[in-house]
Protein backbone atom coordinates (compact mmCIF):
# COMPACT_ATOMS: atom_id res chain seq x y z
CA UNK A 1 0.00 0.00 0.00
CA UNK A 2 1.32 3.47 -0.76
CA UNK A 3 1.70 5.85 2.19
CA UNK A 4 -1.41 7.84 1.21
CA UNK A 5 -3.67 4.80 1.13
CA UNK A 6 -2.14 3.68 4.38
CA UNK A 7 -2.95 7.04 5.95
CA UNK A 8 -6.45 7.25 4.52
CA UNK A 9 -7.63 3.69 5.07
CA UNK A 10 -11.25 2.95 4.25
CA UNK A 11 -12.17 2.63 7.92
CA UNK A 12 -10.78 6.14 8.52
CA UNK A 13 -12.62 7.67 5.59
CA UNK A 14 -15.85 5.95 6.68
CA UNK A 15 -15.61 7.31 10.23
CA UNK A 16 -14.84 10.78 8.84
CA UNK A 17 -17.92 10.69 6.62
CA UNK A 18 -20.23 9.20 9.28
CA UNK A 19 -18.81 9.85 12.74
CA UNK A 20 -20.37 7.99 15.68
CA UNK A 21 -21.31 9.52 19.05
CA UNK A 22 -21.50 12.97 17.52
CA UNK A 23 -23.01 15.87 19.42
CA UNK A 24 -22.97 17.63 22.80
CA UNK A 25 -24.21 16.37 26.17
CA UNK A 26 -25.65 18.48 29.01
CA UNK A 27 -23.02 19.87 31.40
CA UNK A 28 -23.34 18.79 34.18
CA UNK A 29 -23.55 15.85 34.56
CA UNK A 30 -21.13 15.58 31.63
CA UNK A 31 -17.59 16.94 31.76
CA UNK A 32 -16.54 19.01 28.77
CA UNK A 33 -13.11 19.70 27.26
CA UNK A 34 -11.80 20.88 23.95
CA UNK A 35 -8.70 20.34 21.87
CA UNK A 36 -7.35 23.04 19.57
CA UNK A 37 -4.71 22.56 16.90
CA UNK A 38 -2.99 25.95 16.59
CA UNK A 39 -1.42 25.07 13.27
CA UNK A 40 -4.78 24.69 11.51
CA UNK A 41 -7.31 26.13 13.97
CA UNK A 42 -9.24 22.84 14.10
CA UNK A 43 -11.22 22.29 17.29
CA UNK A 44 -12.74 19.18 18.78
CA UNK A 45 -15.02 19.25 21.80
CA UNK A 46 -15.50 16.16 23.92
CA UNK A 47 -18.22 15.41 26.50
CA UNK A 48 -17.86 12.60 29.01
CA UNK A 49 -20.49 11.40 31.50
CA UNK A 50 -19.27 9.09 34.25
CA UNK A 51 -21.26 6.37 36.02
CA UNK A 52 -21.38 6.22 39.83
CA UNK A 53 -18.53 3.71 39.88
CA UNK A 54 -16.35 6.17 37.91
CA UNK A 55 -16.45 4.35 34.59
CA UNK A 56 -17.23 6.23 31.39
CA UNK A 57 -20.95 5.97 30.81
CA UNK A 58 -21.27 8.09 27.69
CA UNK A 59 -18.72 9.86 25.55
CA UNK A 60 -19.38 12.05 22.52
CA UNK A 61 -17.64 14.70 20.44
CA UNK A 62 -18.29 17.55 18.06
CA UNK A 63 -16.17 19.85 15.99
CA UNK A 64 -14.71 20.56 12.62
CA UNK A 65 -11.55 19.16 11.28
CA UNK A 66 -9.77 16.95 8.84
CA UNK A 67 -10.59 13.31 8.16
CA UNK A 68 -7.82 12.21 10.52
CA UNK A 69 -8.96 14.25 13.53
CA UNK A 70 -12.65 13.47 12.99
CA UNK A 71 -12.24 9.75 12.48
CA UNK A 72 -9.75 9.42 15.36
CA UNK A 73 -12.24 11.10 17.69
CA UNK A 74 -15.06 8.91 16.38
CA UNK A 75 -13.08 5.71 16.94
CA UNK A 76 -12.10 6.98 20.39
CA UNK A 77 -15.74 7.36 21.45
CA UNK A 78 -16.41 3.80 20.37
CA UNK A 79 -13.48 2.43 22.38
CA UNK A 80 -13.59 4.49 25.57
CA UNK A 81 -17.19 3.78 26.65
CA UNK A 82 -17.34 1.59 29.76
CA UNK A 83 -13.68 2.06 30.65
CA UNK A 84 -12.42 3.10 34.07
CA UNK A 85 -10.37 6.34 34.16
CA UNK A 86 -7.19 4.25 34.38
CA UNK A 87 -8.37 2.14 31.48
CA UNK A 88 -9.10 5.27 29.42
CA UNK A 89 -5.65 6.69 30.20
CA UNK A 90 -4.12 3.42 29.09
CA UNK A 91 -6.13 3.57 25.88
CA UNK A 92 -4.87 7.11 25.18
CA UNK A 93 -1.29 5.89 25.68
CA UNK A 94 -1.95 2.98 23.34
CA UNK A 95 -3.32 5.24 20.65
CA UNK A 96 -0.37 7.62 20.99
CA UNK A 97 1.97 4.64 20.51
CA UNK A 98 0.05 3.60 17.41
CA UNK A 99 0.40 7.02 15.73
CA UNK A 100 3.97 7.76 16.84
CA UNK A 101 5.69 4.49 17.75
CA UNK A 102 7.72 2.07 15.71
CA UNK A 103 6.54 -1.28 17.10
CA UNK A 104 4.23 -3.35 14.93
CA UNK A 105 0.58 -2.76 15.78
CA UNK A 106 -1.52 -5.74 16.84
CA UNK A 107 -4.74 -5.51 14.83
CA UNK A 108 -6.54 -8.09 16.99
CA UNK A 109 -5.80 -6.13 20.13
CA UNK A 110 -6.62 -2.64 18.87
CA UNK A 111 -9.15 -3.15 16.09
CA UNK A 112 -10.05 0.10 14.33
CA UNK A 113 -7.44 2.04 16.30
CA UNK A 114 -4.77 0.10 14.43
CA UNK A 115 -5.84 1.76 11.17
CA UNK A 116 -4.13 4.93 12.40
CA UNK A 117 -0.63 3.43 12.21
CA UNK A 118 -0.35 5.09 8.77
CA UNK A 119 -0.09 8.46 10.56
CA UNK A 120 3.48 7.51 11.55
CA UNK A 121 4.69 8.38 8.08
CA UNK A 122 3.14 11.87 8.37
CA UNK A 123 4.57 13.35 11.59
CA UNK A 124 2.82 16.68 10.91
CA UNK A 125 -0.53 14.87 11.19
CA UNK A 126 0.05 13.37 14.67
CA UNK A 127 -1.54 16.45 16.26
CA UNK A 128 -4.63 15.90 14.10
CA UNK A 129 -4.94 12.30 15.22
CA UNK A 130 -4.45 13.17 18.90
CA UNK A 131 -6.79 16.19 18.97
CA UNK A 132 -9.89 14.45 20.38
CA UNK A 133 -7.79 12.13 22.53
CA UNK A 134 -6.09 15.07 24.24
CA UNK A 135 -9.52 16.53 24.95
CA UNK A 136 -10.55 13.22 26.57
CA UNK A 137 -7.39 13.40 28.68
CA UNK A 138 -8.46 16.90 29.84
CA UNK A 139 -11.97 15.72 30.68
CA UNK A 140 -10.52 12.86 32.75
CA UNK A 141 -8.32 15.33 34.60
CA UNK A 142 -11.32 17.52 35.42
CA UNK A 143 -13.37 14.57 36.69
CA UNK A 144 -10.53 12.89 38.56
CA UNK A 145 -7.94 15.52 39.51
CA UNK A 146 -4.57 14.05 40.33
CA UNK A 147 -4.20 13.66 44.12
Amino acid sequence: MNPLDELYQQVILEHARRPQNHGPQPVPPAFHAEGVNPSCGDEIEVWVTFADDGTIQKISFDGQGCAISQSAASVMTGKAGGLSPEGARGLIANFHDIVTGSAEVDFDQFGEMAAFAGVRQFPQRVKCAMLGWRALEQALKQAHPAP
Partner: protein
Amino acid sequence: MNFPSPDWAAVRAQFPILTQVQDNGEPLLYFDSAASSQKPQVVIEALTRFYEHDNANVHRGFYELSARATEHYEAARGRVAHFIGAEDSEIVFTRGTTEAINLVAFAWCRKNLRPGDVILLTELEHHSNLVPWQLAAERHGATLRFVTVLGDDGSLDEAAVPGLLTEEVKLFAFPHISNSLGTITPAEDWCALARNRGIITLVDGAQSVGHIPVNVKELGCDFLAFSGHKICGPTGIGALYGTAQALADMPPFHGGGEMIESVQYERSTYREAPARFEAGTPPIAGAIGLAAACDYLAALGMEAIAAHDEILTARLVDTLNRIDGVRAIGPQGKRGALSSFIMDGVHPHDLVTFASGRGLALRGGHHCTQPLMRKLKLPGTARASLYFYNTEEEIDRLGEILTDTRRYFA
Protein backbone atom coordinates in the same frame (compact mmCIF):
# COMPACT_ATOMS: atom_id res chain seq x y z
CA MET B 1 3.33 45.90 -23.38
CA ASN B 2 6.17 48.39 -23.67
CA PHE B 3 8.68 46.30 -21.74
CA PRO B 4 10.66 43.27 -22.89
CA SER B 5 9.36 39.90 -21.71
CA PRO B 6 12.04 37.40 -20.65
CA ASP B 7 12.21 33.81 -21.91
CA TRP B 8 10.38 32.38 -18.92
CA ALA B 9 11.49 28.77 -19.57
CA ALA B 10 15.11 29.92 -19.43
CA VAL B 11 14.35 31.90 -16.27
CA ARG B 12 12.84 28.81 -14.64
CA ALA B 13 16.00 26.86 -15.45
CA GLN B 14 17.91 29.28 -13.19
CA PHE B 15 16.18 27.74 -10.13
CA PRO B 16 18.04 24.48 -9.35
CA ILE B 17 15.49 23.21 -6.82
CA LEU B 18 12.65 23.11 -9.34
CA THR B 19 14.07 20.25 -11.40
CA GLN B 20 14.10 17.78 -8.53
CA VAL B 21 12.24 14.52 -8.10
CA GLN B 22 11.02 14.37 -4.49
CA ASP B 23 11.54 11.52 -2.02
CA ASN B 24 8.09 10.20 -2.96
CA GLY B 25 9.19 9.83 -6.58
CA GLU B 26 7.11 12.73 -7.88
CA PRO B 27 8.50 15.81 -9.61
CA LEU B 28 8.13 18.96 -7.53
CA LEU B 29 5.13 21.16 -8.35
CA TYR B 30 5.83 24.17 -6.15
CA PHE B 31 2.77 26.30 -5.41
CA ASP B 32 3.70 27.83 -2.06
CA SER B 33 5.69 30.88 -3.07
CA ALA B 34 3.51 33.17 -0.94
CA ALA B 35 4.95 31.32 2.06
CA SER B 36 8.50 31.26 0.71
CA SER B 37 9.88 31.62 -2.80
CA GLN B 38 12.58 29.50 -4.39
CA LYS B 39 16.06 30.90 -5.09
CA PRO B 40 17.83 31.42 -8.39
CA GLN B 41 21.41 30.27 -8.85
CA VAL B 42 22.66 33.85 -8.80
CA VAL B 43 21.39 34.38 -5.23
CA ILE B 44 22.82 31.07 -4.04
CA GLU B 45 26.16 32.04 -5.61
CA ALA B 46 26.13 35.46 -3.95
CA LEU B 47 25.88 33.74 -0.56
CA THR B 48 28.62 31.25 -1.42
CA ARG B 49 30.89 33.97 -2.77
CA PHE B 50 30.50 36.05 0.37
CA TYR B 51 31.38 33.13 2.63
CA GLU B 52 34.25 32.01 0.39
CA HIS B 53 35.84 35.43 -0.12
CA ASP B 54 34.48 38.27 1.97
CA ASN B 55 33.24 36.97 5.32
CA ALA B 56 34.11 39.04 8.41
CA ASN B 57 32.19 41.12 10.89
CA VAL B 58 31.11 44.56 9.69
CA HIS B 59 31.79 48.07 11.01
CA ARG B 60 34.39 46.75 13.47
CA GLY B 61 37.65 45.61 12.00
CA PHE B 62 40.42 47.84 10.75
CA TYR B 63 41.67 45.07 8.51
CA GLU B 64 41.01 44.56 4.84
CA LEU B 65 38.52 41.71 5.05
CA SER B 66 36.25 43.52 7.51
CA ALA B 67 36.42 46.65 5.38
CA ARG B 68 35.40 44.61 2.36
CA ALA B 69 32.52 42.91 4.23
CA THR B 70 31.33 46.31 5.43
CA GLU B 71 31.50 47.70 1.93
CA HIS B 72 29.42 44.81 0.56
CA TYR B 73 26.91 45.07 3.40
CA GLU B 74 26.37 48.80 2.97
CA ALA B 75 26.28 48.43 -0.81
CA ALA B 76 23.54 45.81 -0.30
CA ARG B 77 21.53 48.40 1.63
CA GLY B 78 21.84 50.74 -1.33
CA ARG B 79 20.77 48.08 -3.84
CA VAL B 80 17.71 47.11 -1.75
CA ALA B 81 16.84 50.80 -1.32
CA HIS B 82 17.12 51.39 -5.05
CA PHE B 83 14.82 48.43 -5.73
CA ILE B 84 11.91 50.14 -3.95
CA GLY B 85 12.84 53.73 -4.78
CA ALA B 86 14.16 54.64 -1.33
CA GLU B 87 17.29 56.36 -0.02
CA ASP B 88 20.00 54.16 1.54
CA SER B 89 19.47 55.70 4.97
CA GLU B 90 15.78 54.82 4.83
CA ILE B 91 16.39 51.04 4.86
CA VAL B 92 16.72 49.14 8.12
CA PHE B 93 17.69 45.49 7.72
CA THR B 94 15.52 43.19 9.83
CA ARG B 95 14.94 39.45 10.04
CA GLY B 96 11.87 39.86 7.86
CA THR B 97 8.44 41.46 7.66
CA THR B 98 7.44 40.33 11.13
CA GLU B 99 10.45 41.87 12.82
CA ALA B 100 10.08 45.05 10.77
CA ILE B 101 6.49 45.49 11.95
CA ASN B 102 7.43 44.69 15.54
CA LEU B 103 10.18 47.29 15.38
CA VAL B 104 7.62 49.99 14.55
CA ALA B 105 5.05 48.60 16.99
CA PHE B 106 7.61 48.85 19.81
CA ALA B 107 9.74 51.84 18.97
CA TRP B 108 7.35 54.18 17.16
CA CYS B 109 4.46 53.40 19.48
CA ARG B 110 6.63 53.83 22.58
CA LYS B 111 7.19 57.45 21.72
CA ASN B 112 4.00 58.31 19.87
CA LEU B 113 1.08 56.21 21.13
CA ARG B 114 -0.98 57.43 24.09
CA PRO B 115 -4.04 56.22 26.02
CA GLY B 116 -7.17 56.75 23.94
CA ASP B 117 -5.31 56.65 20.62
CA VAL B 118 -6.45 54.32 17.88
CA ILE B 119 -4.55 52.09 15.43
CA LEU B 120 -6.49 51.37 12.25
CA LEU B 121 -6.04 47.96 10.59
CA THR B 122 -8.04 45.87 8.15
CA GLU B 123 -9.78 42.57 8.79
CA LEU B 124 -7.49 40.98 6.19
CA GLU B 125 -4.44 41.22 8.43
CA HIS B 126 -1.86 38.44 8.66
CA HIS B 127 -1.16 37.68 12.33
CA SER B 128 2.17 39.47 11.95
CA ASN B 129 0.38 42.75 11.16
CA LEU B 130 -2.18 42.22 13.92
CA VAL B 131 -0.61 40.73 17.04
CA PRO B 132 2.22 43.35 17.30
CA TRP B 133 -0.46 46.09 17.31
CA GLN B 134 -2.55 44.21 19.89
CA LEU B 135 0.53 44.12 22.13
CA ALA B 136 1.27 47.81 21.49
CA ALA B 137 -2.33 48.82 22.18
CA GLU B 138 -2.21 46.88 25.45
CA ARG B 139 1.06 48.57 26.49
CA HIS B 140 -0.13 52.09 25.75
CA GLY B 141 -3.87 51.96 26.47
CA ALA B 142 -4.78 52.38 22.82
CA THR B 143 -7.45 50.53 20.88
CA LEU B 144 -7.63 48.83 17.50
CA ARG B 145 -10.15 49.60 14.79
CA PHE B 146 -10.70 47.66 11.57
CA VAL B 147 -11.70 48.26 7.98
CA THR B 148 -14.39 45.61 7.44
CA VAL B 149 -14.12 42.72 4.98
CA LEU B 150 -17.37 42.52 3.01
CA GLY B 151 -17.24 38.90 1.84
CA ASP B 152 -15.08 36.01 0.73
CA ASP B 153 -14.30 37.88 -2.48
CA GLY B 154 -11.90 39.66 -0.13
CA SER B 155 -13.33 43.12 -0.79
CA LEU B 156 -12.96 45.74 1.91
CA ASP B 157 -15.39 48.46 2.89
CA GLU B 158 -13.25 51.09 1.19
CA ALA B 159 -15.98 53.72 1.33
CA ALA B 160 -15.79 53.64 5.12
CA VAL B 161 -12.06 54.38 5.31
CA PRO B 162 -12.26 58.22 5.27
CA GLY B 163 -14.75 58.04 8.15
CA LEU B 164 -12.56 55.62 10.09
CA LEU B 165 -9.46 57.86 9.87
CA THR B 166 -10.59 60.11 12.72
CA GLU B 167 -8.26 62.28 14.76
CA GLU B 168 -7.75 59.58 17.43
CA VAL B 169 -6.13 57.41 14.76
CA LYS B 170 -2.35 57.73 14.99
CA LEU B 171 -1.31 54.89 12.71
CA PHE B 172 -2.90 53.01 9.81
CA ALA B 173 -1.34 49.62 8.99
CA PHE B 174 -2.62 47.44 6.17
CA PRO B 175 -1.51 44.78 3.70
CA HIS B 176 -0.64 45.84 0.17
CA ILE B 177 -1.81 42.38 -0.96
CA SER B 178 -3.68 39.96 1.31
CA ASN B 179 -1.76 36.71 1.83
CA SER B 180 -4.83 34.53 2.20
CA LEU B 181 -7.32 36.06 -0.28
CA GLY B 182 -5.11 37.99 -2.68
CA THR B 183 -6.98 41.29 -2.30
CA ILE B 184 -5.00 44.28 -3.57
CA THR B 185 -5.69 47.32 -1.40
CA PRO B 186 -5.81 50.89 -2.76
CA ALA B 187 -2.56 51.59 -0.94
CA GLU B 188 -1.69 54.86 -2.70
CA ASP B 189 -5.10 56.39 -2.00
CA TRP B 190 -5.05 55.30 1.63
CA CYS B 191 -1.52 56.61 2.21
CA ALA B 192 -2.44 59.98 0.67
CA LEU B 193 -5.61 60.21 2.73
CA ALA B 194 -3.77 59.36 5.95
CA ARG B 195 -0.85 61.69 5.21
CA ASN B 196 -3.25 64.61 4.67
CA ARG B 197 -4.55 64.02 8.17
CA GLY B 198 -1.13 63.56 9.78
CA ILE B 199 -1.65 59.81 10.30
CA ILE B 200 1.37 57.53 9.93
CA THR B 201 0.99 54.59 7.53
CA LEU B 202 2.66 51.18 7.53
CA VAL B 203 2.22 49.00 4.45
CA ASP B 204 2.75 45.26 4.88
CA GLY B 205 4.52 44.56 1.61
CA ALA B 206 5.22 40.86 2.21
CA GLN B 207 3.09 39.81 -0.79
CA SER B 208 3.55 42.84 -3.04
CA VAL B 209 7.26 43.64 -3.13
CA GLY B 210 8.86 41.41 -5.74
CA HIS B 211 5.50 40.65 -7.35
CA ILE B 212 4.41 44.09 -8.57
CA PRO B 213 6.46 47.27 -9.06
CA VAL B 214 6.68 49.01 -5.67
CA ASN B 215 8.08 52.52 -5.35
CA VAL B 216 7.77 53.87 -1.83
CA LYS B 217 7.75 57.49 -2.92
CA GLU B 218 4.86 56.88 -5.32
CA LEU B 219 3.14 54.76 -2.68
CA GLY B 220 3.48 57.65 -0.21
CA CYS B 221 3.73 55.43 2.89
CA ASP B 222 5.70 56.24 6.03
CA PHE B 223 6.76 52.62 6.58
CA LEU B 224 6.93 49.56 4.34
CA ALA B 225 7.89 46.09 5.58
CA PHE B 226 8.94 43.14 3.46
CA SER B 227 10.81 39.83 3.58
CA GLY B 228 13.77 38.62 1.55
CA HIS B 229 12.82 34.96 1.37
CA LYS B 230 9.54 35.68 -0.41
CA ILE B 231 11.32 37.52 -3.23
CA CYS B 232 14.03 35.03 -4.20
CA GLY B 233 16.32 36.05 -1.33
CA PRO B 234 17.54 34.10 1.72
CA THR B 235 15.58 33.53 4.93
CA GLY B 236 16.42 35.61 7.99
CA ILE B 237 16.64 38.89 6.13
CA GLY B 238 14.07 41.55 5.33
CA ALA B 239 13.76 45.28 5.49
CA LEU B 240 11.86 48.12 7.02
CA TYR B 241 11.60 51.20 4.86
CA GLY B 242 10.84 54.35 6.80
CA THR B 243 10.91 57.98 5.74
CA ALA B 244 13.80 59.86 7.33
CA GLN B 245 11.28 61.71 9.46
CA ALA B 246 9.44 58.57 10.61
CA LEU B 247 12.69 56.77 11.48
CA ALA B 248 13.97 59.80 13.39
CA ASP B 249 10.79 59.70 15.43
CA MET B 250 11.63 56.27 16.87
CA PRO B 251 13.69 55.50 19.97
CA PRO B 252 15.83 52.32 19.85
CA PHE B 253 14.24 48.84 19.76
CA HIS B 254 17.00 46.31 20.47
CA GLY B 255 19.97 47.50 22.47
CA GLY B 256 23.49 46.30 21.80
CA GLY B 257 26.61 46.90 19.82
CA GLU B 258 26.62 48.98 16.67
CA MET B 259 23.51 51.04 17.54
CA ILE B 260 25.34 53.18 20.09
CA GLU B 261 27.28 56.43 19.92
CA SER B 262 28.73 56.38 23.41
CA VAL B 263 28.17 53.95 26.27
CA GLN B 264 28.62 54.52 29.97
CA TYR B 265 27.65 52.14 32.75
CA GLU B 266 24.48 54.09 33.54
CA ARG B 267 23.34 55.32 30.14
CA SER B 268 24.14 55.53 26.48
CA THR B 269 23.53 57.67 23.47
CA TYR B 270 22.42 56.24 20.18
CA ARG B 271 23.28 56.57 16.54
CA GLU B 272 21.00 57.88 13.82
CA ALA B 273 18.81 55.55 11.76
CA PRO B 274 19.33 53.03 10.25
CA ALA B 275 22.25 52.02 12.52
CA ARG B 276 20.18 52.79 15.61
CA PHE B 277 17.90 49.85 14.76
CA GLU B 278 20.57 47.31 13.86
CA ALA B 279 21.96 46.15 17.19
CA GLY B 280 24.49 43.36 17.16
CA THR B 281 26.07 41.62 14.20
CA PRO B 282 23.56 41.90 11.35
CA PRO B 283 22.69 39.10 8.91
CA ILE B 284 25.48 40.21 6.56
CA ALA B 285 25.31 37.35 4.07
CA GLY B 286 21.53 37.60 4.12
CA ALA B 287 21.63 41.28 3.21
CA ILE B 288 24.02 40.56 0.35
CA GLY B 289 21.77 37.70 -0.80
CA LEU B 290 18.72 39.96 -0.65
CA ALA B 291 20.52 42.59 -2.72
CA ALA B 292 21.36 39.92 -5.31
CA ALA B 293 17.69 38.94 -5.39
CA CYS B 294 16.59 42.57 -5.87
CA ASP B 295 19.08 43.02 -8.72
CA TYR B 296 17.88 39.77 -10.26
CA LEU B 297 14.21 40.81 -10.15
CA ALA B 298 15.02 44.28 -11.46
CA ALA B 299 16.92 42.76 -14.39
CA LEU B 300 13.93 40.56 -15.26
CA GLY B 301 11.82 43.71 -14.96
CA MET B 302 9.12 44.19 -12.33
CA GLU B 303 6.52 45.09 -14.99
CA ALA B 304 7.30 41.87 -16.86
CA ILE B 305 7.11 39.83 -13.64
CA ALA B 306 3.78 41.41 -12.69
CA ALA B 307 2.34 40.78 -16.16
CA HIS B 308 3.48 37.15 -16.12
CA ASP B 309 2.16 36.64 -12.57
CA GLU B 310 -1.17 37.98 -13.77
CA ILE B 311 -1.44 35.58 -16.74
CA LEU B 312 -0.55 32.58 -14.57
CA THR B 313 -2.89 33.65 -11.77
CA ALA B 314 -5.84 34.02 -14.16
CA ARG B 315 -5.19 30.49 -15.44
CA LEU B 316 -4.92 29.20 -11.88
CA VAL B 317 -8.25 30.71 -10.80
CA ASP B 318 -9.93 29.47 -13.98
CA THR B 319 -8.49 25.96 -13.47
CA LEU B 320 -9.72 25.84 -9.87
CA ASN B 321 -13.23 26.99 -10.75
CA ARG B 322 -13.55 24.34 -13.47
CA ILE B 323 -13.06 21.50 -10.99
CA ASP B 324 -16.31 19.98 -9.77
CA GLY B 325 -16.89 20.86 -6.10
CA VAL B 326 -14.05 23.41 -5.94
CA ARG B 327 -14.53 27.12 -5.42
CA ALA B 328 -11.81 29.73 -5.67
CA ILE B 329 -12.06 32.41 -3.00
CA GLY B 330 -10.93 36.00 -3.38
CA PRO B 331 -11.32 38.88 -5.81
CA GLN B 332 -12.91 38.22 -9.20
CA GLY B 333 -10.66 40.60 -11.09
CA LYS B 334 -7.12 41.65 -10.36
CA ARG B 335 -5.52 39.91 -7.41
CA GLY B 336 -2.20 38.87 -5.97
CA ALA B 337 -0.46 35.80 -7.38
CA LEU B 338 -2.42 33.33 -5.28
CA SER B 339 -5.80 31.75 -4.83
CA SER B 340 -7.34 30.25 -1.74
CA PHE B 341 -9.96 27.64 -2.46
CA ILE B 342 -12.28 25.18 -0.79
CA MET B 343 -13.27 21.72 -1.92
CA ASP B 344 -16.70 20.42 -0.90
CA GLY B 345 -16.47 17.71 1.72
CA VAL B 346 -12.68 17.70 1.85
CA HIS B 347 -10.80 19.40 4.67
CA PRO B 348 -7.83 21.53 3.52
CA HIS B 349 -5.34 19.41 5.49
CA ASP B 350 -6.50 16.19 3.86
CA LEU B 351 -6.45 17.87 0.46
CA VAL B 352 -2.93 19.17 0.95
CA THR B 353 -1.65 15.83 2.29
CA PHE B 354 -3.13 13.94 -0.67
CA ALA B 355 -1.84 16.48 -3.19
CA SER B 356 1.61 16.25 -1.60
CA GLY B 357 1.61 12.55 -2.40
CA ARG B 358 1.39 13.59 -6.06
CA GLY B 359 4.24 16.08 -5.77
CA LEU B 360 2.14 19.19 -5.29
CA ALA B 361 3.26 21.71 -2.65
CA LEU B 362 0.20 23.64 -1.42
CA ARG B 363 -0.57 25.41 1.81
CA GLY B 364 -3.62 24.40 3.84
CA GLY B 365 -5.07 25.95 6.97
CA HIS B 366 -5.78 29.44 8.22
CA HIS B 367 -2.72 31.05 6.58
CA CYS B 368 -2.00 33.04 9.75
CA THR B 369 -5.32 34.83 9.32
CA GLN B 370 -7.46 33.07 11.95
CA PRO B 371 -9.85 35.97 12.64
CA LEU B 372 -10.51 36.39 8.92
CA MET B 373 -11.27 32.67 8.46
CA ARG B 374 -13.59 32.77 11.48
CA LYS B 375 -15.36 35.84 10.10
CA LEU B 376 -15.83 34.22 6.69
CA LYS B 377 -16.98 31.01 8.45
CA LEU B 378 -14.30 28.98 6.68
CA PRO B 379 -12.60 26.05 8.42
CA GLY B 380 -9.41 27.17 6.73
CA THR B 381 -8.70 26.91 3.02
CA ALA B 382 -6.17 25.37 0.69
CA ARG B 383 -4.01 27.93 -1.11
CA ALA B 384 -2.06 27.77 -4.32
CA SER B 385 0.37 30.64 -4.75
CA LEU B 386 2.78 31.13 -7.60
CA TYR B 387 5.65 33.13 -8.98
CA PHE B 388 7.11 33.79 -12.40
CA TYR B 389 8.94 30.43 -12.42
CA ASN B 390 5.69 28.43 -12.44
CA THR B 391 4.39 27.22 -15.78
CA GLU B 392 1.01 26.78 -17.44
CA GLU B 393 1.68 23.04 -17.65
CA GLU B 394 2.18 22.94 -13.88
CA ILE B 395 -1.16 24.67 -13.38
CA ASP B 396 -2.87 22.13 -15.64
CA ARG B 397 -1.24 19.32 -13.66
CA LEU B 398 -2.48 20.96 -10.44
CA GLY B 399 -5.99 20.82 -11.89
CA GLU B 400 -5.67 17.09 -12.61
CA ILE B 401 -4.34 16.32 -9.15
CA LEU B 402 -7.14 18.26 -7.45
CA THR B 403 -9.72 16.44 -9.56
CA ASP B 404 -8.22 13.14 -8.33
CA THR B 405 -8.21 14.47 -4.77
CA ARG B 406 -11.92 15.16 -4.87
CA ARG B 407 -12.62 11.70 -6.29
CA TYR B 408 -10.51 10.10 -3.56
CA PHE B 409 -12.31 11.68 -0.62
CA ALA B 410 -15.83 12.40 -1.86
